[in-house]
C-alpha cells in the first residue's frame, strides 16, 4: 500500500469507497444538514478543513506514540485532536461568519462525533500512508463527503416541491434516497484499490 499512486488514493477515497455512501461514515450530518444546498456546501467545506487538520495531527501523533511505544493511547489521542480541531473551526466560523454559524447550528460541534473524521485517522494509520499520501487521502475523503452531501441536498430540494405520501415523509424517504445514491456509487466499484 505504501507505493499507491496519489491519484488512485484520491479517487478511491472520494468516489469508489465514498465515506458516506460506501463506508457508512458520517451519516448523522449527511441526514441532518442536507436539507439546503448552501448549508450543505458550507458544512462540506468545514468537514474538509477539519479532516485536513486532524489528518496531519494524527500522522504526527501516531509517529510520536510509535516512538514512545504507547500505541494503546492512540484512540484517546486521536479523538482529543479532533475535538480541538473542531473547536478551532467553530471559533473561526463564529468570528468571520456569524450567519453561517447560526445556520450550521448544533451540527458544527457535532463534527467531533462525525465518525468520518475519526474513521479517516484510523484508516490512514491502518493503511500506513506516508505524510503526503495521508494529506491526499484526507482531501479525497473530504471531497467525497462534500459530493455526497451536495447530491443529497440537490435531491431533497427538488423533493420539497414534490408530493409524496404522508407516510414516507421525513427520515424514511431520505434513507431510501441515500440507498439509491449508494446503489449508483456501487457502479464505481473496482476502479480504485481495495476497501478501506
Amino acid at each position, binding site marked *: 500500500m505504501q507505493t499507491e499512486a496519489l491519484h488512485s488514493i484520491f479517487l478511491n477515497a472520494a468516489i469508489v469507497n465514498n465515506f458516506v455512501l460506501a463506508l457508512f461514515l458520517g451519516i448523522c450530518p449527511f441526514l441532518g444538514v442536507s436539507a439546503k444546498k448552501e448549508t450543505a456546501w458550507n458544512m462540506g467545506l468545514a468537514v474538509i478543513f477539519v479532516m485536513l487538520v486532524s489528518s496531519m495531527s494524527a500522522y504526527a501523533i501516531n509517529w510520536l506514540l510509535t516512538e514512545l511505544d504507547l500505541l494503546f493511547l492512540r484512540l484517546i489521542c486521536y*479523538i482529543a485532536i479532533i475535538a480541538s480541531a473542531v473547536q478551532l473551526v467553530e471559533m473561526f466560523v463564529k468570528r468571520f461568519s456569524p450567519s453561517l454559524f447560526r445556520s450550521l447550528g448544533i451540527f458544527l460541534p457535532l463534527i467531533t462525533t462525525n465518525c468520518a473524521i475519526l474513521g479517516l485517522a484510523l484508516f490512514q494509520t491502518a493503511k500506513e500512508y506516508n505524510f503526503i499520501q495521508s494529506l491526499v487521502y484526507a482531501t479525497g475523503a473530504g471531497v467525497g463527503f462534500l459530493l455526497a452531501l451536495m447530491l443529497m441536498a440537490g435531491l431533497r430540494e427538488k423533493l420539497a416541491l414534490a408530493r409524496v405520501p404522508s407516510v414516507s415523509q421525513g427520515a424514511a424517504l431520505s434513507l431510501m434516497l441515500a440507498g439509491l445514491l449508494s446503489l449508483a456509487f456501487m457502479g464505481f466499484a473496482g476502479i480504485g484499490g481495495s476497501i478501506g
Partner: protein
Amino acid sequence: MSNLPNRIESLSPDTFIRGLWRENPVFVMLLGMCPVLAVTNTTINAIAMGLATTFVLVCSSILISLLRDWIPKQVRIASFIVIIATFVTIVDYGIQAISLELYAALGAFIQLIVANCVILGRAEAFASKQRLHTTLVDSLGMGAGFTLALLSLGTVREILGSGTLLGIPLFGDNFQPWVVMILPPGGFFVLGAWLLLFNWIRLRKEQQSIERSGVAANAN
C-alpha cells in the same frame, strides 16, 4: 432526549422501557446510524456490535454519573469523550482477545464506537445530571434499544441477502440470495423500510384517536 433533564428523575419501569420503544435511539431519535448501517450485514455482527456498544454505554454512564459533581461544566464534553474512549479501548482489546474473526468482521467500527452519538448524547442529557441507579437503568434500556435496532436490521439483511440466519441456511439450494441487501445500499433500504413501517403505525394510531375523539364529540 429526556423530557425534563434538569429534574432529578425517580426510578420507574419507564426508565428502562422508553429506551426500547418510545425513545429508541435509532428508530426515533436517529442517533448512531453509522454502525447501525455498516455492521448489520449479518446477525452475529449485529449482536456483537450491540453488546459492545451497550458495555461502553453502561460503563461510561456509571463513571460519568459518579463524577458528575467533579467535572467542570466548561470541559465536560472533552471529559466525557476521554472516558468513553477509555472504555472503547478496553472493548477493542477485549474483542481482539476473544475472537480475531469477529474483530476482522467489525473492522474499524469497534474503535468508532467513540464517535457514536448515542453514548455522548446520553452522557450529556442524562448521566451527567442523574443519580447512579437511574443512570444505570437508563443506559441499560438505551443499550437494549440500540441492540434491538441492530438486530432488526441484521436479521432482515442476513435472511434476504444470504438466505441464512446466524449462519444456518433457511431455504433450500434453490434460493437465489438478494445480494444487494448485504451490500451498502441494502442497509439504507432496510432501515428506510423499518422507518416507513413505524411511520405507518404512528399515523394509523393518530387517525384512530382523531376518529375516536370525533365520535365522542358527535355524541355530545
